[in-house]
């Protein structure tokens, strides 16, 4: 019940609870979800927090429906979110693609657990990194942010909503069982102190409104249903007015703009945190709960005289190549610890182009990689 006392205070919260606080601070007023471990607490807290701020919570019949509902709510003008874990995230891929092509802002939280299939519901994993990138069919850009502390769960969730609104795109928050269930003291700012970005609304008469018009930012203004701008929204490839098209120039125009609107704002979207990288000779690249182990291992390695550094990827997709690449050139060796058989390490290797030695440290037994495991590798590398 402590989660209720939000606003300029210190609280002991679980990551899942902090995600709810972040969402509400960012202006989220609609949540649709389906119970699933280890994301269920998000639904539970939303169910009493949202109606108290005039928002709406609904428990849908499945995750397909949850994803559809948040897209519908966003089109009607509400900032919306859903939360799930692997099996549910798989079901969401279909309508996630709809949000991509129809450019509907929304936030999807995936609290990763072990997979595939039902997998290990109560244990931690990072197996869905590639699914967040390529899970829905067809070429599409996507923004994926990872969280590693309870404080992140608050602030990155705010950031996720801001990016979704700014670029009219679904944003996925990739959490994991450890982050979601760890209770930490966090500082909740006063609502007025949180930077909140809202989608750009059309400011022209309805007759002038072209719902999918290309703009210099690549992001067209978005009208809510019922505001007088009657337009068509579809999952089909569409022209600038939103109507289905098969004209190659219009198809290419839409697809190119979808990518361009993310790519040209790359520096606004990419977020990484660095630890002792200035003179680092060995570098750890980590994200999510593993970044916490990596941070400790880096400090311990330093204490033993090894010039270790780390970068924590907050933005996973688009992959923060512009930050990672120069760093790879500066160091002797790179270690990528992750709770899968190598997903982000593939991306690091791709960016690296074989120049620097890249090693992986993988754990797939349902437990978090420990600082000692990383340290022992850093000592040998």
């Amino acid at each position, binding site marked *: 019940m402590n989660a209720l006392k939000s606003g300029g205070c210190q609280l002991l919260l679980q990551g899942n609870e902090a995600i709810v606080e972040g969402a509400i601070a960012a202006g989220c007023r609609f949540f649709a979800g389906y119970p699933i471990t280890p994301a269920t607490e998000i639904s539970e807290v939303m169910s009493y927090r949202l109606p108290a701020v005039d928002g709406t919570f609904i428990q849908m019949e499945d995750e397909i429906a949850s994803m559809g509902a948040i897209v*519908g709510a966003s089109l009607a003008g509400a900032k919306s979110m859903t939360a799930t874990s692997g099996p549910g995230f798989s079901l969401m891929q279909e309508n996630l693609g709809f949000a991509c092509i129809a450019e509907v802002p929304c936030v999807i939280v995936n609290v990763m657990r072990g997979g595939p299939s039902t997998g290990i519901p109560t244990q931690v994993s990072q197996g869905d990194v590639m699914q967040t990138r390529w899970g829905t069919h067809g070429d599409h850009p996507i923004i994926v942010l990872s969280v590693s502390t309870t404080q992140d769960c608050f602030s990155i969730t705010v950031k996720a909503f801001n990016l979704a609104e700014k670029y009219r795109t679904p944003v996925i928050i990739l959490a994991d069982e450890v982050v979601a269930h760890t209770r930490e003291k966090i500082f909740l700012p006063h609502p007025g102190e949180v930077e909140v970005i809202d989608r750009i609304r059309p400011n022209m008469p309805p007759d002038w409104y072209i719902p999918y018009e290309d703009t210099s930012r690549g992001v067209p203004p978005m009208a809510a249903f019922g505001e007088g701008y009657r337009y068509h929204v*579809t999952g089909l490839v569409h022209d600038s007015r939103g109507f289905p098209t098969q004209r190659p120039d219009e198809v290419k125009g839409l697809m190119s703009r979808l990518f361009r609107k993310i790519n040209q704002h790359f520096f606004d979207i990419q977020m990484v945190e660095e630890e002792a990288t200035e003179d680092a000779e060995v570098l750890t690249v980590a994200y999510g709960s593993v970044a916490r182990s990596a941070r400790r291992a880096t400090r311990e390695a330093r204490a033993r005289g090894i010039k270790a550094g780390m970068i924590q990827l907050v933005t996973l997709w688009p992959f923060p190549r512009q930050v990672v690449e120069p760093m790879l050139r500066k160091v002797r060796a790179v270690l990528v610890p992750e709770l899968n058989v190598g997903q982000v390490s593939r991306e690091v290797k791709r960016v690296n182009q074989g120049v620097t030695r890249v090693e992986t440290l993988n754990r797939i037994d349902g437990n978090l990689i420990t600082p000692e495991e990383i340290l022992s590798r850093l000592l040998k590398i």
Partner: protein
Amino acid sequence: MAEVTKLIHKYLRHHKKFPHVWCPGCGNGILLGALIRAIDRTRLEKDEIVIVSGIGCSGRLSVYVDFNTLHTTHGRALTFATGVKLANPKLHVIVIMGDGDATAIGGNHFIHAARRNLNLTAIVINNSIYGMTGGQYSPTTPYGSLATTSLYGNIEQAFSIAELAAMAGASMVSRGTVYHTKLLDDLIEKAIQKRGFSVVEVISHCHTQYGRRNKMGNAADMLLWQKNSAVRMEKARTLSHEEMKDKFSIGVLVDRDLPVYTEEYGKVKEMAKKAMTQMR
């Protein structure tokens, strides 16, 4: 004629999106006409109306009408509509689906939307076949019928969409045909006006994919079949099971007042706000 032209100009994206994709003689056009006539009678503003459709021939209907229109994914129209309605309960949300759309891939969403009794209008156009993909059997294809995926006759039993909706808890359920257009206008108007989840099952025909393969003739022959097979609800209730064999009832099947989701949720909001102030 003048009246029709007026409606066309008022409600259709006539200068943008025509000609439509439907075959000549398709029942979807008749339903489109009934829909705009019914909406016109309700005197609702165009801005207040959201048309949500799924995938299939019926799904294309949303392109042609000048409302807030949302053409969703296959089977999921009701889930999007749920979000639209809950985010802005003032909007009148009308959902257009086909038989495969609503009761196969979207069957779960359909029964749960009815159970929840959200204030939505669901129109299910039932032509007993997957038309757009080329004539595969659907959950409403009659036993024994031929389809491109049942070359030896369909061995599955058909759903009755209206009865399914009634059992699932919809406030209002009716069935019409594209032959009985005046009745269809009335049923759709009533459904839009009804508080709670209302379903109109519209019996239609796909002469291209179903009629041709099952020797039911052209569009006109199939409309005649509808005329001859439909029995008014009042009369149907007096007939035996045997007498109703190969026939179906039309009219209002269910009309009842049940707690409406949006109103119930309003109470939840009040309670949550009160609990919050007590907490502070």
